[in-house]
């Protein structure tokens, strides 16, 4: 039995679907960020898998993943800084109640 490309892509797809679901339904801002990480991760897997199977002699996909991990780290750090700041101001992390700046 061979491990084909499709077999790697299926878990990645399900991970992405879970990310979408979590992003839409969760109310806690940190939970939303976690869902976002899921989606990013699944995309990273796709890049790597396509690189490995289709162009094994090159490493563009791997490099993309590398940079994506770096950017994700930066983005998460900043987002968490904002979340903590917001929490410090209004004592809440539920995005439905963060309407102070609206309108």
């Amino acid at each position, binding site marked *: 039995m061979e491990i084909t490309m499709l077999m790697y892509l299926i878990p990645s797809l399900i991970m992405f679907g879970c990310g*979408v679901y979590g*992003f*839409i*339904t969760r109310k806690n801002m940190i939970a*939303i960020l976690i869902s976002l990480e899921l989606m990013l991760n699944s995309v990273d897997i796709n890049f790597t898998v396509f690189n490995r199977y289709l162009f094994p002699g090159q490493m563009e996909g791997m490099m993309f993943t590398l940079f994506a991990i770096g950017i994700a780290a930066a983005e998460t750090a900043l987002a968490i800084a904002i979340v903590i700041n917001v929490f410090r101001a209004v004592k809440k992390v539920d*995005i*439905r109640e963060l309407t102070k700046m*609206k309108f």
Partner: protein
Amino acid sequence: MELSYTVAVLIIPIVMFLFLGIVGVKLSKKTAGLLGTCAMGVTTLIAYASALTYFFGTSQGQIVDGVRQQLEVLDITWLQFTENLVIKLGILLDPISAMMLIVITTVSLMVHIYSLGYMDGEKGFQRYYAFLSLFTFSMLGLVVATNIFQMYIFWELVGVSSYLLIGFYYTLPAAVSASKKAFIVTRFADLGFLLGILILSFYTKTFDFVTLTSNPSAAITSAGGATFMGCSVMAWALTLIFMGGAGKSAMFPLHIWLPDAMEGPTPVSALIHAATMVVAGVYLVARLFPVYCLEEGTMTVITVIGCVTALYAAAVACVQSDIKRVLAFSTISQIAFMITSLGVARPELHEGVGYMASMFHLFTHAMFKALLFLCAGAIIHAVHSNEMSKMGGLRKYMPICNIAFLIGCLAISGIWPFAGFFSKDEILVAAYANSPVWGIWLSAVAGMTAFYMFRLYYKIFWWNNPDYGHHTPHEAPMTMTFPLIFLSLVSIVAGFVPFGDLVTWNRGVLHTQIVWAVAGTSTVIAVAAIALATVLYYKENPVPTKMADACRGLWTAAYKRFYMDELYQFITHKIIFACISRPIAWFDRRIIDGTFDLLANVTNSASYAVRKLQGGTIQGYVLVYILGAAILAAVSIICLI
């Protein structure tokens, strides 16, 4: 070019207007008044120099074969739209414009001096002088216009300054409505004027007075026999232009604004509504006279309107009780004399004496009517009322005013040797030469003129001696009496000006002589009318009241100005407003506005409905984005299969 300094008579007043209008409030009242008056004095000197040089100068090219040339001393192309459609600004000097320069500046200067006393202590003194300067500028610009379009521009400017000055006491509702009335009525007439200008210039391809009048038959035939409603297009054009003149000159039935215009300060009435602006219509017809006299139908219209107005205004003037109203109606009547005189003038009749008579009467009338108005102002100043019933026996208190008013009355009645005798005599000669009907008609009106003027005179200065109480009337100050004396002198000697040598329809020389048959008759009629007035009003007696009671209906009708204002009121309110304006207003408000209101409301409610979509909920955005992308992908997959 020689005489090009004439442009100063336009520049000085407009500069004065701007100066007094902008920085006037910073000046003291006395400074502003004196400044305006001095500027007017300089303007007058320049205008006199210019006019006298034109009339009596002997330089090259002014008189060719005994005919004075029309001099365009300034000619600027203002707007050039196409080759034919050029709008110019310039200064045209010819006998009538030179004469008008003298008339306007003289009366204006007198009014400026007089106002120093009359308007003393009024609020807005500086504004008053600014407006006077604006009016002087506009009127001078009107008379020296080289083309009909320039004339129209200044024509509207005098309308505006008249509006501003009638409404000078803008806190009084009567003054405000009078100024609106004057503006709207003259605007309505000017609509005709504008249409006339457009038709005329469309066919003749020119605005220029010189081009139009130097070859009038070409102007008439340029329409090529085109007709409208059975009359030739040129007759329509000229009649419409005359309509503008009739509005400005308060001819029946467009006269209704002039009596109300007396709400303005009295010196303004003297300047604008007696001497200068209201003769603009006469001047307009005179300006285009060579063209007019080729259109027999239009000339008949002018004559008839002039005669009707003369009689109507004289009849109304006989019974009015407000002295300014009497003078206003007498002004209408006298202007109607001038209009009639132009209407009956023909080049072949007595060498076109009607034209000369009209201009002559314009000149003398300006002087003695300004005198009468200024006297009336002095009287009102002393008595603080316009009503005759509050006056009487004033000859003891105001001797100078008494003499001046008497001279004015004698002049307007046509008694030798006062100015009105000569000019009115020429008008009657012209009328009799055209048709005895008009002659007799005008003679009768001239008799009425003498009657109502002396009725006014006796009622003010003789009649009874009412109790003035602690407030005894007194003679006006020197600034007010000087113009009275000056204008009295002018009214006495103006008749001896050899007008026939100066102002004629073909700018040549007209040999006038007094036709004693006409002059004698008119003098006899005038003396008889004066005698009648003397008998009736010399001393307080019940006879006039009894006469009024005897024909109460006629008297009331005349007192109510034959219900002309009520007729206008009826037409505008009951017919135009109710039947035309209101449905249009309804249509505008409900249909036009309603459509746009509907659009606005729909947009508004749609915005409210979709507002939630842009609520800033990122989760909602992601949901829509994902679902949208999925739908698009599904659609493309289905389509590709």
